[in-house]
Structures are given as C-alpha cells and as structure tokens.
C-alpha cells in the first residue's frame, strides 16, 4: 500500500511560489471563464520572474471529453512544455493531468493504467491550482473524463498524475458565486465522508478526512453566506484539498457512483449530484454495515454534532448533512433539479448500469446490487429516506 500527496503551497499570496519554479515553457490548461476572470493572467504574471514562456489552452468544458484532452495534448506537442499547469475546477485539472499523460507518453487518454510507468516527468512536471473548493483534484491522481459517445463518465488515472505541486491561494476562490461555493463544498464533504468510510481507507487517510469534515461543517455556510469571508474561504480551500487527499488515497463511495451516473445522463453539475445523493447513500450503507455506522458516529462525535450511541450519532450526522444542504440552498432531491420524473424513471436502467459499474460501488462496506441502487435512485427523486 502507499499514500501520495503533492508538495502543497498554501496561504495568502502562495501563487508567488510560481516565481521560483525552474523550467522553460508552461502549458496552462483551463476554461474560458477562468481566463475571462483574469486568473490565468495572474498565473502568467507570476511565472514571468521565472522566465517561463506560457501557452494557455482555455478550451476545457464542464465534464471534459476525451476529444478535448486529445486536442490539448496535440497543442502541447507543438509547444513542448516542461510544466503542465491545471488551473480551475476539477474539469480543468483533470483535463490537464490526462493531456500531460497523452503528451508525455504518446498514448490516448483511455490507454493510461495505474499499472504502467510512463516516465512522464522526463518530459514535464505537473502543477495544479484550484479555483474552486471542492474537487480536491490538486491532491489526487484521479481523473474523470466523459465519453461523449456513450454518455458515461470514465474514471482513469496513474500514480504519475498526482501533481508535483498544488498551490492553494485563497484569492483564486474569492470570486466563486454562492451556488458554486455550495455545490463544490458539498463535493468536498462527500469526498471526506466517503473516503473516511470506504474499504480502501487507511490510517493515513483518516486524519485528513476527519479534519476536512470538521472544517466544512464549520465554514461552508459562512463561505456561501458571505463570499468575502476570507477565513471561511481559506478554510474551505484547505478542507477541499484535505478531502482530496482522503478520497484520493482511500477511494470514494456510493454517492459518487450515483452522482456520476446522473451526471453522465442528465449533465447535472458534479458537486450538485454528489451532495444530493450523499445522505441517501449514507443511510443505505449505515443501515447494513455496523462498521460504517461506527465510523459515522466517530465523525459526529469529532465534529461535536452528537454524543450517544453509534446509531444515534450516525443518524445525527446524516441529519446534519441534510441541514447543511438546506442551509446553503442545495437541492435535496432530484425533483428539485427540475428533472422530469418520467425521463428519470425511463433512464433508470442506464443509471443503475452506470452506478453498479463504478469502482466506488465495490469500495463500500455494504455493496449494493442493482435492485438496491434502483431503490436509492427512486428515494432520491422525491426525498424519501432510505430505510432498507
């Protein structure tokens, strides 16, 4: 077993670390909004003292496709960068990681495997700068791309796609609108709770998971209510990265399986889908796994949510998740996402097939079968508690 974490630079003005890196050319992978907000320019300016020539690829779409990655890699091939910089949310960072592998190893995005060694650092190093506080992609080797032909999310990765450096500069997240702050924050909470309770967890993932959950319960509402609350923003940024470390080494769980399935078919934003399914899938696992029930209780006690029996604490934690979602205006049901019920039910075989074939579905202490997943999806439509 092993545990990976990038060299992490954090705090006010931590972007200045870019002044000090050694190299010749940096390929910045981002999206058009980030470029428009001037955040890519901030990065370019900080690289000037290091005499690093930059090229910006700002063509990353939400849920980046395999084609986008191939396009970025083709541009990089001509530019010959020795740094790849992922700037943005999970989409930009994941597109950056995968385009680096394609560029350095000369393979397609789907050809990467954790078993292979591509020696990508012989060609370029990887630096990630998040502009949201949720994905945690800057702290993981995981990559999620979208196969647009099959309307399916594809989880990929190689240990070489763990960034060399992560820069957590709070000014990069200060302009996030409240609904994005909320949904990405719920994504981070999902990473931490699931990473803390999977079968892949280790003593190394427990600490960052617990710390992240506490920070999120204490700061997410503050960051949503007042985007200028620098301390809350900073805490959320750190929590998201810690949550990334937790699930990146310890795997995610069922909310991810269900959320990816929903996102693949209905294109629901990642964080919205994760947060939505989190309480339902927590109920499902806790109802059938003493081990996870105990872990939920540990979280509740650590965060000061409840004291008492494991069952009471576990219930209180799930209730606290639901309350937080309500407090920050996140949709608690699929119905609230304005997804037509008939279309949702018609898509059920596809939802179940996608969810059951996610690696996260077998990394939980209560592995669902197709029928279980269908019931969870149905409960989440109208907001019925999962009592089976």
């Amino acid at each position, binding site marked *: 077993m*092993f545990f990976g974490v990038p060299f992490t630079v954090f705090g006010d003005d931590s972007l200045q670390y870019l002044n000090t890196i050694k190299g010749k050319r940096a390929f910045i992978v981002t999206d058009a909004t980030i470029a428009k907000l001037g955040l890519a320019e901030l990065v370019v300016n900080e690289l000037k003292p290091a005499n690093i020539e930059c090229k910006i690829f700002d063509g990353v779409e939400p849920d980046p496709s395999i084609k986008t990655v191939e396009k970025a890699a083709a541009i990089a091939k001509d530019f010959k960068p020795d740094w790849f910089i992922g700037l943005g949310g999970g989409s930009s960072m994941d597109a950056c990681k995968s385009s680096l592998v394609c560029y350095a190893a000369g393979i397609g995005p*789907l*050809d990467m495997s*954790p*078993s292979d060694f591509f020696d990508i650092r012989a060609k370029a190093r990887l630096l990630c700068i998040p502009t949201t506080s949720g994905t945690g992609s800057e702290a993981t080797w995981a990559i999620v791309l979208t196969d647009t032909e099959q309307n399916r999310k594809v989880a990929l990765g190689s240990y070489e796609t763990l960034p060399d450096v992560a820069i957590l500069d709070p000014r990069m997240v200060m302009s996030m609108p409240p609904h994005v702050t909320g949904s990405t924050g719920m994504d981070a909470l999902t990473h931490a709770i699931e990473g803390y309770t999977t079968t892949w967890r280790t003593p190394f993932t427990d600490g960052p998971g617990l710390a992240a959950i506490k920070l999120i319960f204490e700061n997410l509402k503050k960051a949503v209510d007042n985007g200028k609350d620098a301390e809350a923003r900073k805490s959320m940024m750190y929590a998201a990265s810690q949550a990334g470390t937790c699930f990146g080494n310890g795997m995610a769980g069922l909310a991810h399986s269900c959320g990816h399935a929903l996102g693949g078919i209905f294109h629901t934003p990642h964080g919205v889908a994760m947060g939505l399914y989190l309480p339902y899938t927590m109920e499902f696992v806790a109802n059938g796994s003493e081990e996870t029930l105990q872990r939920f209780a540990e979280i509740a006690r650590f965060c000061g949510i409840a004291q008492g029996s494991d069952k009471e604490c576990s219930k209180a934690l799930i209730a606290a998740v639901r309350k937080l979602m309500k407090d920050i205006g996140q949709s608690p049901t699929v119905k609230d996402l304005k997804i037509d019920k008939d279309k949702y039910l018609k898509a059920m075989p596809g939802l179940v097939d996608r969810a*059951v*074939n996610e690696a996260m579905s*077998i990394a939980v202490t209560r592995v669902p079968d197709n029928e279980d997943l269908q019931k969870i999806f149905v409960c989440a439509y109208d907001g019925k508690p999962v009592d089976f």
Partner: protein
Amino acid sequence: MALFGTLEWATAFMEAVNASKAYEEAAKTWEGDFYFIIEPGGAVKELGYTYVDLWHGKCRKVDVVTDATKDKYKPEFVLQANVGTWRKVAEKKIDSIQAIVTRQLKLTGNMGKVMRAVKAAQELVNCVTRVKTEYPE
C-alpha cells in the same frame, strides 16, 4: 481441490463462471480475453499463464501455457501478480480494482474498458471464490 495456475483449476474456474447467473448478467456485453499471469516466487519457479476467454457473460475457453508457448494467444488484457496477491484477490482481502490501482495486480490493456465493467469483475472474483483452490505457497 485444484492447484491454482493449473489446467484443472482453470477448467473448474470456467465451470464456475458458466454456472453463474450473476456473472452472466453483469458481463452480458463484455468481450475480451485475458492472460492471468502468476509471477515466480516461493513454490512458483517460473511464469505461469492462464488463458481465459470471456465473451458475453460466458467463458468460452481456458488454457494454460508456459513462457515458451505464450505466443499461442494474443489476449486483449494481461493481469499479472505474485501468487500472494492473487490469493488476496481471490479471498476478497483486497478488491480487484484496488489491487490494480495500487499496482499489486499489474494490468496491461485498456483500463477504461475494465473500469466500465466493475460489476463483472466483482462477479468474476465471486466465481473464483467458488473454486476449491490450493495455492502453491
């Protein structure tokens, strides 16, 4: 009781796969053959290759070849590990995807295709657990 890595074991595994309704359902669209390679170590003196051809929820063929005859098949996927790791996977001490991701089980082939067939992989491991197996340790 069949010795892991032998034709006897592979045949018993094929029977277990073809008797599994759960695997048939989970892998109904799967098309792809494998080499399961056992690395030398301990009682295993040389590389051992078990060929398994999986097609639409059934196992069409198994075979066992050696390093000298491995070119007999050109499977789409290769999974390779020492016998200890194979045993951990077979006894569900580690899930197969975790074993791949943590490089304990080395995969050659399209990772994306495997990651879209997690349920089938899980059911395949369930089939392995139904084979009474002796390990060369």
